[in-house]
């Protein structure tokens, strides 16, 4: 009982920290609007990293999916992306290149590539072959098929990859302060001037930010999904167990 009250008390302090700027021991201003520059840095590094990763992985993934080649590369990159810990990549770039926004962005770009690549590949690859044949029959060239048929149909899955990467990078950006980039992770990694209330408060803000990004981007993803596909997805699967099932799970799970 006492522990519950203690926890609620800490929670109250944390919420207070999030919304009200206060003076810590030693006179630094923390909390409230002081969190805004941290938020800005956090969102900025996420957006830059995901944008750069998309610029690399989207063309590559969609092209590989269209031609059907390179599945080994995509699977290897995906597996490597899963096996290597994100903190390892961040610290490796920190060790090799030093601290700083640019250096750590490079690390985050590397982390952001695998889900985007995988989803772009499986998205384009997974377009119904009959549809592609029909388009070919209508006289469309390869590039036209890609841009007018495959990409629009693959868009939801492709965007899903961008969404996954965004949430992953957002989470990893919490480590930024350990590598010299002062993001919302600062009260968590360096709690000394923020205190326990600050640390819990920042943790809550990061969690809300991540869930918010996921929910928001999912809404965009749904908006991008053509009606026909939404209906098809909703129908129970009558087909037999395909070994492709795990792959699709991989695509949208990660």
């Amino acid at each position, binding site marked *: 009982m006492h*522990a519950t009250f*203690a*926890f609620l008390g*800490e*929670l109250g302090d944390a919420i207070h920290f999030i919304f009200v700027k206060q003076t810590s021991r030693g006179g630094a201003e923390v909390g409230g609007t002081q969190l805004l520059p941290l938020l800005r840095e956090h969102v900025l590094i996420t957006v830059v990293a995901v944008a750069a990763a998309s610029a690399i992985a989207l063309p590559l993934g969609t092209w590989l999916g269209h031609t059907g080649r390179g599945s080994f590369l995509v699977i290897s990159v995906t*597996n490597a992306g*899963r*096996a*290597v*810990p*994100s*903190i*390892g*990549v961040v*610290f*490796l770039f*920190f*060790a*090799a290149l030093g601290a700083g926004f640019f250096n750590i962005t490079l690390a985050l770009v590397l982390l952001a590539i695998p889900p985007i690549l995988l989803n772009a590949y499986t998205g384009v690859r997974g377009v119904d072959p009959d549809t592609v044949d029909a388009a070919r029959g209508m006289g469309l060239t390869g590039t036209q098929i890609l841009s007018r048929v495959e990409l629009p149909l693959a868009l939801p899955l492709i965007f899903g990859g961008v969404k996954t990467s965004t*949430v992953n990078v*957002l*989470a*990893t950006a*919490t*480590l930024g302060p*350990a*590598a010299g980039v002062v993001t919302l*992770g600062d009260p*968590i*990694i360096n709690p000394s001037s923020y205190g*326990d209330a600050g*640390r*819990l408060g*920042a*943790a*809550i803000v*990061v*969690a809300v930010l*991540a*869930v918010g990004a*996921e929910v928001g981007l999912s809404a965009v993803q749904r908006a991008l999904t053509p009606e026909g596909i939404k209906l098809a997805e909703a129908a*129970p*699967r*009558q087909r*037999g*167990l*395909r*070994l492709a*099932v*795990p792959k699709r*799970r*991989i695509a949208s*799970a*990660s």
Partner: protein
Amino acid sequence: MTLDPTLVLAQSEGGFFRNRSSGVDKCVESNGFCPSWIVHHLDRYTTPFEQHLVLVVVSVGLGFLVAFALALLAHRRRWLVAPVTQITGILYTIPSLAAFFILLPITGRGRTTAIIALTAYTLLILFRNIVDGLDGVPAEARDAGRGMGLTERQLLWRVELPLALPAIMAGLRIAATTTVGLAALAFYAGAGGLGEPMEADKAFDSNVVAAGGLCVVMAVALDGLLLLTQRLLTPWTRARAA
């Protein structure tokens, strides 16, 4: 640990102080990537490796038990699938570093907190894969089973689950490899793991590569082990492929 002979000399002179003006390993001094240093100092990663492995195995194991129970419940009561997916989805989305410190006031600093957060993360992947695996069982197989007089329970354990095994194992493999990566953060919660030595000297290339590399080794090994288990448990898929 192998010492440079000039260093050893200074120490054995009865003095405690090493001679650092000569015989210094240039690679180590510049915090570079030194494969020989890694090979000679692997022993300092054994305890963190063990802690890391325990975290992963316990979290994935617990996650599997919980997800499996939820999936069995949801198999018969379809209305459960959406809410469970949503809740486990939220748990999945919350960054583990944030989760550690949200749990901290309740469960304190240490292994318990880390395991709770890591377990919560695996639930979505495992739940979805088990449910999809069960959903993917062909209707004909179910009909055949019912035709043979199997009860619902026998149908589940003798027909549906074995056929769902590939999807379930795929989920386990993903959960295991992603948990290895996340457990590298567990030291922030005071739970040890390979992240601890990594962060202790994060400016030293060799150290980061060694600790991170051991994470990769663990992930690959667990993945391979689970794949092997899958092959052993589903001999019919091999026969079909043959």
